[in-house]
């Protein structure tokens, strides 16, 4: 297989991925799944490079609407909205997009390095994960709520519980019974987090913007993509490192995915920042950390997939489908029997990360141009994009209604000044927390100490407690300073 074929495959995959990731409602996995049938007749290495490059592009593409319209194109880009959209509102859209692109590039290369070095060696870590470990991982993710709650921890916790409640809708993970479905077949598989996110982020923002004055237009100068200056590069280096390391670990853990890692990275970047007060108000570090994290995940998520055949995310599952379609069975034998495919994939992913930098720059121009359009037209197009994208998710009009309903919920939460990011986290993590909590108890004959006896789960739970305690102390200190 000629090396030359990898280049168009990587560039094409990245372009397709950015396009799909940038469309709210079109997740990376859908973007990859749409491409899957077209790879059937291709050379197997070209096919897997095309699919993996799409994943890389989509993870970055999700940040474009997150920054430009305050709507994450993917779950993993949700954390980018917090500061990315604030930067856009301050007329720094080009700078935010530049930080996102550059941080994604750095994270992607780091993830690739981890993938190459540790794929076989670290597979034992993923193997050691039990249901109690997964439960503890979910709790660790939920502990971030304390930091996302803003001024009111109480209201943040309420929003988090509301999210956990939403996650209970659908088929019970252990018994298979229907819960809160009211006889509707559309609710049997639960409420997909992407609908909740589109509703809470996009629809509620549209409703708020309905009565808002025309937003600030990006000038030609400010709309031009700006890569970080040396001073900014120095400032975002640590958040990038934090995001890359968290993304590397979370990506390898089945079930964790980009959303958890980006929120954790955001939280840790704020904790370690010299300017924590700027977070939530347009901090460049708040864009760099989650973007580095989710692009690292796009590579390290392939570690358990390649070494054990365990897809750690929906996108990895689609990629696994691509492997199996070409009769490539992931696992230790893959490296022996099809070493050239694995090496081709590594090479392709390197090209994809470079391609992301180039294609991301080219595609950014038209995206930034969109920000400067008259508000009524832009709002109308966003609305059309939302209803079209949500329908495209499962070709179901019911989903459009669900997204609108969550738009009303988001609008109400905004009116009551309740942060809705904890709710998103509850929805994303709810199923994982409940299913693994119950499975762990079944396996331990109802012994709750199983969560502390397992070293991995004990370590994860201890980390969650430290994060919670740190957040509470920080809030107490802030209140004391205010007095």
């Amino acid at each position: 297989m000629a090396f030359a074929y990898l280049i168009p495959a990587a560039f094409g995959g990245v372009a397709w991925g950015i396009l799909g990731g940038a469309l709210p409602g079109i997740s990376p996995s859908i973007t990859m799944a749409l491409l899957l049938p077209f790879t059937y007749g291709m050379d197997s290495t070209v096919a897997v490079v095309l699919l993996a490059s799409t994943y890389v592009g989509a993870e970055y593409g999700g940040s474009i609407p997150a920054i430009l319209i305050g709507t994450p194109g993917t779950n993993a880009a949700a954390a980018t909205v917090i500061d990315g959209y604030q930067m856009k509102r301050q007329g720094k859209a080009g700078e935010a997009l530049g930080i996102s692109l550059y941080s994604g590039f750095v994270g992607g290369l780091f993830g690739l390095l981890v993938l190459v070095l540790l794929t076989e060696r670290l597979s034992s870590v993923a193997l050691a994960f039990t249901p109690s470990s997964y439960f503890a991982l979910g709790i660790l993710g939920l502990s971030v709520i304390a930091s996302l709650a803003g001024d009111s921890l109480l209201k943040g916790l309420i929003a988090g519980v509301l999210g956990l409640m939403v996650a209970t809708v659908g088929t019970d993970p252990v018994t298979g019974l229907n819960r809160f479905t009211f006889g509707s077949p559309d609710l049997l598989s639960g409420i997909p987090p992407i609908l909740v996110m589109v509703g809470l982020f996009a629809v509620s923002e549209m409703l708020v913007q309905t009565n808002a004055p025309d937003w600030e237009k990006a000038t030609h100068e400010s709309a031009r993509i700006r890569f970080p200056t040396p001073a900014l590069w120095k400032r975002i280096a640590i958040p990038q490192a934090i995001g890359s390391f968290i993304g590397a670990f979370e990506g390898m853990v089945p079930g964790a995915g980009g959303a958890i890692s980006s929120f954790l990275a955001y939280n840790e970047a704020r904790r370690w920042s010299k300017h924590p007060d700027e977070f939530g108000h347009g901090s460049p570090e708040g864009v760099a950390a989650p973007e580095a994290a989710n692009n690292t995940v796009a590579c390290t998520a392939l570690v358990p997939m390649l070494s054990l055949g365990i897809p750690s995310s929906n996108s990895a599952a689609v990629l696994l489908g691509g492997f199996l379609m070409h009769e490539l069975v992931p696992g230790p034998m893959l490296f022996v029997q099809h070493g050239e495919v694995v090496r081709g994939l590594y090479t392709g992913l390197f090209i994809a990360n470079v391609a992301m930098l180039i294609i991301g720059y080219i595609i950014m121009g038209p995206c930034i141009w969109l920000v400067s359009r008259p508000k009524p037209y832009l709002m109308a197009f966003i609305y059309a994009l939302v209803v079209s994208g949500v329908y495209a998710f499962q070709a179901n009009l019911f989903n459009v209604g669900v997204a609108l309903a969550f738009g009303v919920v988001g609008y109400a939460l905004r009116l009551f000044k309740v942060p809705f990011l904890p709710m998103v986290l509850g929805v994303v993590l709810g199923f994982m927390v409940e299913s693994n909590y119950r499975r762990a108890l079944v396996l331990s004959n109802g012994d709750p100490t199983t969560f502390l006896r397992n070293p991995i789960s004990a370590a994860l739970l201890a980390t969650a407690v430290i994060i919670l305690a740190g957040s509470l102390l920080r809030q107490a200190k802030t209140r004391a300073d205010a007095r």
Partner: protein
Amino acid sequence: MSRDLLFGFATLAIAVVYYALTSMIPPSDLADPIGPQGLPRVYAFVLAALSILLIVRSLRTGRTPEPRTTAPRNHQSARVAGMLLIGVAYILVVPYLGYLVSVAMLIAVTTYLQGGAVNGRTLLVALSGAALFWAIFIWLLRIQYPAGLWPSLI
């Protein structure tokens, strides 16, 4: 009534209704020690407890009247409701009018509601926008959107 107090009562009501709904989950012989109602009931209790805490806190500190400037006025609420109605209308008409016509109407009506003028430019933007979305989702991504009644009329 303060904003927090109202929110506290609303979430307390949600907790009560949600708890009541857990009793509608049928029993199962396959149930584990926690069961399908287990964690939902815990969530309901936690939500109720947090809501009561919020109510108590807002009763203790809520004497100061809140500024009313952020609350939407009637005409603003009407515009928000209008945006939602556009979405609901889209869901209702798209099976009959098809994707292309429905999305063009959605763009045109939303533009008007957002303060855009009713003129040829808006119509042109709506039609070209619909064509663009059709090209992306149907032609490029090959997603099967409702075609409406048009095929049966041809």
